[in-house]
């Protein structure tokens, strides 16, 4: 798996080039790292941003994983190497995940230092841990969703478009739910749901959310395993992989 990871890293670095690196730093370290959280004026809201950064980093990277190979005409050669489906999928999933997490946590660290210098309110451990855990979840979600899109997409561009739609649905879905669905729910239901989260980390609500996250990631992973294994068999109808 290490060899696949190294290959992904080298392809990412060489494919991005200097302009890409400048763009990346400008978007994630300046906009997501300082401008956006700094403008929110609330420490919790500012740090929640960092939990979503991996989704934006890992997803597009994962979209490139197979669609990019197809586009560069390197997929068949890669499949002819001795690398096993498990190692191939592991490396392809782990690279965007780790890079997404690295970006998120680095940006968060820099913002924390910046906050200390500016004398802004500092986050407590009770905020940092959920943000880091949330970041881990969005990194896994972004990576696995991106890989699913990548396996279907014929080109990186079409994959990016499909992933953007999925991302938009996820990003807009949460505030839309809060804005339109929540107020219509009976107050008794809201109170009951609220009660589930009493007790903080050990509450039934948090455990339920964790189980849901774990389940969704497991389902994504298992379906991916089947589909990556299928890469070694040509699409009988189209003569394509």
């Amino acid at each position, binding site marked *: 798996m290490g060899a696949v990871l*190294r290959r992904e890293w080298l392809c990412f670095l060489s494919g991005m080039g200097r302009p890409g690196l400048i763009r990346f730093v400008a978007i994630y370290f300046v906009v997501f790292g300082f401008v956006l959280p700094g403008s929110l004026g609330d420490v919790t809201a500012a740090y929640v941003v960092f939990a979503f950064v991996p989704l934006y980093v890992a997803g597009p990277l994962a979209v490139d994983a197979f669609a990019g190979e197809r586009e560069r005409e*390197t997929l068949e050669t890669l*499949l*002819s190497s001795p690398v096993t489906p498990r190692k191939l999928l592991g490396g392809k999933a782990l690279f965007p995940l780790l890079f997404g997490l690295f970006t998120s946590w680095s940006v968060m660290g820099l913002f924390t230092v910046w906050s200390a210098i500016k004398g802004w309110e500092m986050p407590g451990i009770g905020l940092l841990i959920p943000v880091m855990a949330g970041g881990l979840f969005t990194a896994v979600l972004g990576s696995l969703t991106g890989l699913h899109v990548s396996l279907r997409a014929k080109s990186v561009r079409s994959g990016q478009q499909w992933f953007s739609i999925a991302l938009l649905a996820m990003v807009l879905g949460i505030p839309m739910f809060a804005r339109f669905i929540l107020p219509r729910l009976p107050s008794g239901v809201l109170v009951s749901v609220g009660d589930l989260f009493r007790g903080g980390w050990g509450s039934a609500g948090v455990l339920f959310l964790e189980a849901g996250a774990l389940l969704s990631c497991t389902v994504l992973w298992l379906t991916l395993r089947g589909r990556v294994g299928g890469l*070694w068999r*040509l699409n*009988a109808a*189209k*003569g394509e992989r």
Partner: protein
Amino acid sequence: MSSDRAAAAFCGITVSYGGVTALNGMDLEIPGLGVFGLLGRNGAGKTTAIRALVGLVKPSAGSLEVFGRDPGDAGWSRDRISVLFAEDGLVPSLTVEENLSVWAGLCGTGRREASILAGAVLADIGISQYAAVRVKELSTGNRRLAALARTFMLPADMVILDEPTSSLDPVRADEVRRAIGRLAESRLVLLSTHNLPEAEELCDTVAIIDRGRVVISGPPGELEGMPDRLLVRTESGSIVFRGETLEPSEDGCVILDCADAPADVLAELVALGNRVTEFRTYRKSLSGIFLELTGGDR
């Protein structure tokens, strides 16, 4: 691997893509050593046969063994085979050396060893000066040579080359052919091509496939079912033979399709008053055989 044992055996292999049958009950044995040519027109099934060998396509009928195992088995390892597909498979944004190094990594070779092997194969092929150049900046010919370096870099029992000289100018194609000839000295190379002079130059054995079946196989000079003919040149050009006057072809000779012993035929020709200036057995070229066997309407 011993040379007398077949490296791969296709037995009635059928592969279909939707409604198209790419391999149609193909029977073929690939020997354990030397250069084996897989010849056929576009769409004859050469690339599908290669994919089946590597386990990239599952046959719908028949059995296939590569080094004694079915390449479709879950535990089958591709580490004994190295393939160069028609697309070179190199990552354009990486340098030649990085491409070789990541490939070696995928094949389980450590970075230090990979670096040594990469340097050696690049020197052997004569493109060491391009080691640090990105693949996308290379010319088509040098890119092909870099892909060959990747394919021959690690020890493999079978090296498969799919149309290695297609899209190259004659000079570059010749360079690539010479490189293949050198690198193939000690291993089994499966060369898929429709370039017949190339096959004649490089291959010890060839198989011509048409419509997903092997139509003939053997050493290029001794393909079975293709009896030798006789080339006759006379002072007058035309010859009289068994009651017929045969006119010469554009190059001034007559080809006789005759099963009799050459010495008897020559004696008969002379007895009939032909003033023979050249008489020899005429072996049909691989191109001639190929066209005869695969040139029909599709």
